[in-house]
């Protein structure tokens, strides 16, 4: 019986990759808060943060440090263990989803060929779904343990909103799986290498997926769990210090990851449009591909912010009606049209 059979170089390589990906996700999440305020300022014809450092670039650092030095308050009527567990779970699930996203093709370093993907598992996208749906526990546990009426209402809203939109999201994804025939994100990206991005085959599916991604990330127009003017701050009303910071950061990391997932599923992942990567050197192609993916993700993050400062919040009954009565039938229809179309085309060949 072997207890430890580890290729240590492999483990080290993965550990470095994980450290880079998670640090990158955290830095991008930090600067998303800055970008959000700048985009809001631009849309509302204001200046936005411009005091800390040049163009206010140190603002997220100042905000992060401030959160660390704030008093940690655990309400006396709350359930103490669950109160700490809630934001921890929210952050943990946000950090786990990045494991299956392919950030680029292979790079060659020190004679080793290194995949720019933490884990290439054949259920890729199902893993993302599984971890994302665990995120609802973070919100619900935090909301319930606070023992605050606003928090509990916010948590309930959040939970039922996330599970409602997960259905339409799952069905819209099935139409895409019919096109690709695989669940592995890496294989999906490789199939899209020659400019045939899945968005061409699945425009309606993408639209449904995008709407559901907004709802899953609790972004406006679906930010009812933290609707300020009715629920104070919703599920994180009672939180302070870095525990509040975890909830906020988790939201921005989720936004980044959902942008990356949409880029991989529908927009070719690390494929650079109009460039033949095989003509480039291996490492150059990998780095340029990763940059291309990050640019696509950046555009998605900008879209998230643009929508937030453009469209007002839904009412709760409108939200549920859109999810259950419009998106689910529409995604089922999309699934059948896609299936029939593919079968009809393959028969006529």
């Amino acid at each position, binding site marked *: 019986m072997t207890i430890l059979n580890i290729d240590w170089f492999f483990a080290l390589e993965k550990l470095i990759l994980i450290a880079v990906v998670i640090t990158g996700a955290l830095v991008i999440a930090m600067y998303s808060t800055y970008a959000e305020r700048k985009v809001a300022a631009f849309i509302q014809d204001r200046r936005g943060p411009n005091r800390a450092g040049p163009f206010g670039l140190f603002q997220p650092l100042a905000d992060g440090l401030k959160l660390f030095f704030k008093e940690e308050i655990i309400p006396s009527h709350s359930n103490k263990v669950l109160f700490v567990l809630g934001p921890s779970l929210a952050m943990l699930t946000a950090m786990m989803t990045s494991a299956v996203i392919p950030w680029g093709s292979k790079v060659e370093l020190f004679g080793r060929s290194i995949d720019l993907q933490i884990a290439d*598992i054949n259920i890729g996208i199902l893993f993302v779904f599984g971890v994302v749906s665990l995120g609802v526990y973070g919100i619900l546990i935090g909301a319930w343990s606070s023992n605050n009426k606003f928090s509990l209402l916010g948590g309930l809203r959040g939970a039922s909103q996330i599970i409602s939109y997960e259905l339409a999201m799952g069905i819209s994804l099935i139409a895409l799986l019919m096109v690709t025939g695989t669940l592995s994100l890496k294989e999906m990206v490789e199939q899209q290498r020659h400019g045939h991005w899945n968005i061409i085959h699945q425009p309606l599916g993408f639209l449904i997926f995008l709407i559901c991604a907004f709802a899953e990330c609790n972004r406006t127009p679906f930010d009812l769990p933290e609707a300020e003017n009715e629920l104070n701050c919703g599920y994180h009303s009672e939180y302070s210090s870095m525990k509040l910071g975890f909830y906020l950061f988790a939201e921005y990391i989720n936004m980044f990851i959902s942008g990356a997932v949409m880029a991989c599923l529908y927009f070719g992942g690390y494929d650079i449009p109009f460039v033949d990567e095989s003509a480039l050197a291996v490492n150059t192609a990998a780095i340029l591909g990763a940059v291309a993916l990050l640019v696509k993700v950046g555009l998605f993050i900008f879209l998230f912010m643009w929508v937030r400062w453009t469209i007002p919040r839904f009412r709760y009954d409108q939200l549920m009606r859109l999810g259950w009565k419009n998106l689910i039938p529409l995604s089922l229809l999309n699934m059948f049209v896609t299936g029939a179309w593919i079968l009809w085309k393959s028969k006529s060949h």
Partner: protein
Amino acid sequence: MIHYFILQAGPVSSVSDTNNSFNYFPIAIQLIFAIAFVAIMMGVTHWLGPKRATEEKLENFESGIEIRGNARQPMAVKYFLVAILFVLFDVEVIFFYPYAVNFRELGWEGFMAVLMFVGFFLAGFYYIFKKGALNWED
């Protein structure tokens, strides 16, 4: 010869399948990394922040008035209904995943079978629709 592994991260020559527990090893590293990060951050913020708690400060926030009753009261049954319906429908959606991956090989025959399955699915959907389970306005 049979090998038993508790923690395995090396190519095993006897296994030709590319998808085994070895592929999940990096996810385990990432989980440990993430748990450590969250725990350290929680510890740091607990250690750095001032601790000047008073009894009033630790009261729950209720828009400035004194707390009335417990927050954990019975809530609208609609939330529960949504949760139950989600479980039912999500299980049905899960059945579509293996179908979608093998959909080309199954051809029209498989398509018709799934069409029938979705027919039942839609019958249930129509029922709850007509029952008003999805109406949020009373």
